[in-house]
């Protein structure tokens, strides 16, 4: 293989399929992609599907097989949620598309991941770019939600839908990895991983590796332990403290999250959003809190002061908590 490099230390990479045939499930998708390889030609592609179902892997396998050893020279990988705006993407694509493709494939390929993070304005711009460089460049666009991609782009792409992986698919892969790594993965462990990660292969493999790091067998106990640790309890505690009326202590938790975990206000509000629905409080109250979360989130998006807005949110929680208690 052309990509003989050091063995990745993270299993999600180490066990990422290198060939289309190794991809778990997604049979129809894989068969059609293999046809493209045979023909040495691809249209613009749009891969759509839930996280951890193999979209990025399929794109990578496709270009490995298409270009062989020359893939590095012919492929540009960009991430729409990292690149600062469409302007950067345009510049990079322009520079890249200007040079001629190496080898026997007459075009280069740009993999643009997480496209649904792009604003519609940026997508219109992207549409133009796709048109400008169509002679020399193909795009593989990847997104979780097809509906977030504007029509004109959808109509220029062959759309591939990746389905959620089944329990059997995930189990088979995990067992394979466990065997390779010499790990005792119990049936209970498998069930627990499925319960936590569902059909998200990335999360399943991450859970497996983290659980294996404890050295013992990977059973349900270790898996749940890892899942619990991977989800900081601080946010939960913070909400409970605020609802009890201790705003000072709750705020201290905010500071700890910022300092120990390097989280931003936006990160914290995202976690709060998840935790609210796990709280042991009356259901209608969850909705009331969600209303406060949404308002705080919006304010932070607008660039408001994290500390003031988060503490104001906690103070509102304390009031709600008191109202409910008394």
């Amino acid at each position, binding site marked *: 293989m052309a990509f003989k490099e*050091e063995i*990745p*230390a*993270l299993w*999600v*990479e180490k066990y*990422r399929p290198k060939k289309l045939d190794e991809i778990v499930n997604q049979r129809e998708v894989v068969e059609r992609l293999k046809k493209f390889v045979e023909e040495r030609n691809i249209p613009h592609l749009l891969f759509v599907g839930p*996280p951890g179902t193999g979209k*990025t892997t399929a794109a*990578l396998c496709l270009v490995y097989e298409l270009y062989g050893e020359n893939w590095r020279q012919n492929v540009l990988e960009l*991430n*729409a*949620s*990292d690149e600062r705006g469409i302007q950067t993407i345009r510049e990079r694509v322009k520079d890249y598309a200007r040079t001629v493709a190496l080898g026997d494939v007459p075009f280069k390929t740009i993999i643009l*991941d*997480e496209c649904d*993070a792009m604003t519609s304005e940026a997508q219109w711009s992207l549409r133009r770019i796709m048109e400008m460089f169509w002679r020399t460049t193909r795009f593989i666009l990847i997104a979780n939600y097809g509906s977030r991609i504007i029509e004109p782009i959808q109509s220029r792409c062959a759309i591939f839908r990746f389905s959620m992986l089944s329990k059997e698919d995930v189990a088979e892969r995990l067992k394979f990895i466990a065997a390779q790594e010499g790990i005792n993965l119990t049936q209970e462990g498998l069930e627990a991983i499925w319960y936590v990660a569902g059909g998200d292969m990335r999360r399943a493999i*991450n*859970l497996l*590796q*983290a659980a*294996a*790091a*404890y*050295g013992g067998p990977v059973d349900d106990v270790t898996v749940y332990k*890892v899942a619990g*640790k*991977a989800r*900081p309890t601080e946010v939960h505690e913070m909400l409970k403290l605020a609802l009890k*009326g201790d*705003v*000072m202590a709750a*705020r*201290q938790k905010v*500071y*700890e999250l*910022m*300092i*120990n*975990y*390097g*989280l*931003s206000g936006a*990160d914290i509000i995202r976690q709060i959003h998840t935790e609210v629905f796990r709280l042991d409080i009356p259901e209608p109250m969850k909705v009331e809190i969600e209303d406060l979360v949404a308002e705080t989130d919006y*304010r932070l998006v*607008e*660039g*408001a*002061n994290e*500390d*003031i*807005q988060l*503490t*104001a949110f906690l*103070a*509102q929680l*304390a*009031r709600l*908590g*008191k109202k409910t208690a008394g």
Partner: protein
Amino acid sequence: MSVPYHVPWTEKHKPRSIAEIKEIVGEADYVDKFVSWLKNWKPGEKAALLYGPPGVGKTLLVEVVANEFHYELIELNASDTRTESILKRLVGQSSQTISLYGAKGKLIFLDEVDGLTGTEDRGGIGAIVGLVKESRVPIAMAANDPWDPKLRPLRDVSIMIEFKRLRTYSIIKHLKKICAREGIIADERALKIIAELSEGDMRSAVNDLQAAAQGKKRLTVNDVSWLRARNRQYQAFDVLRMLFSAKRCDDARNVLNASLLDYETLMLWIDENLPRQYTDPEELAKAYYYLARADIFLGRMKRRQKWELLKHVIDFMTAGVAMAKTKPYKFTKYGFPQKLLLMAKAKQMRTIRESICEKIAAKCHLSKRKASTEMIPFIHVIYEAPGLAKREISKWLNLDESMEAFLKKQG
């Protein structure tokens, strides 16, 4: 891991004996003057009025002396509401009942007597004067500015003991001692900057030192550079007191004019101290609602360069916050905004987190954001677990020590 910011160094490292105080201030005559007043006090004699700028140790001296000579100290703060009757009751009780065992006698201490203002304290000064004359136990008082005309009656019944600003070198000496106890290696120039900026106010110097040095092993000039821009702490405390005790919108709105603080700094102070001042959830929620509104308008004003919006920012953060109270103002110990320091630290951690995300993103075909939400939580667990996988991961991702430390820190 809990962040141990709760114990102020001003408490933790305050002198506990007369000897220790003398070690700091040198042979200042006010120490002996106060001690000899107390030792020789007999009923009918004058009270002692200790005066001088904030943070020079007036209250501290009273506490230490009382303790060392086994007096039972009855402390009343000026910010407590005190009508004549309350004062009479408290002081009356103290001067008539018999001391608890072990205590030689009682010492009544009225702090911040220049804070006696307004209607609530009506008759306060007169009452004190009356009590001083009748009291069977010594009464000491403290004030920043004893020359206020309304304090004149008090001056007539007191001996005046002046406290001077501390000298820079005395402050440096004390800061050094604290650093030694905290295991901090401090650059002398940094301590000098802190000492000079404090203008002879030991309390603010120690607070500044804590803000700049806590949690560090070394203190450099860089760590204290942000102090220069900051105004004096006691001014902030005074402004907060004025703000939180304001009964009318206009009084609250005026606090900014009365101080040297700019509105953004004041906002920081309010944010830090709101939960201390308002303990009732209803009041706190209301006050924070308006502080948050002020913050929103501050953002709008800056983004759009519409400076005329400033009036709303100020109205919300002053009147909005002050009118949230439903109960009378209650004396509150205010704190120094930890946010500056914490945010600096948080920013540092965020930078580390981001650079780890960048490395993961480059190798794992995902965005930095996904690296942060999907990968880092699990990598944290791996670093905490006993296995050797972390070594390989560090090598593969090419992580430096600070990044490894970040990943190990959880749990």
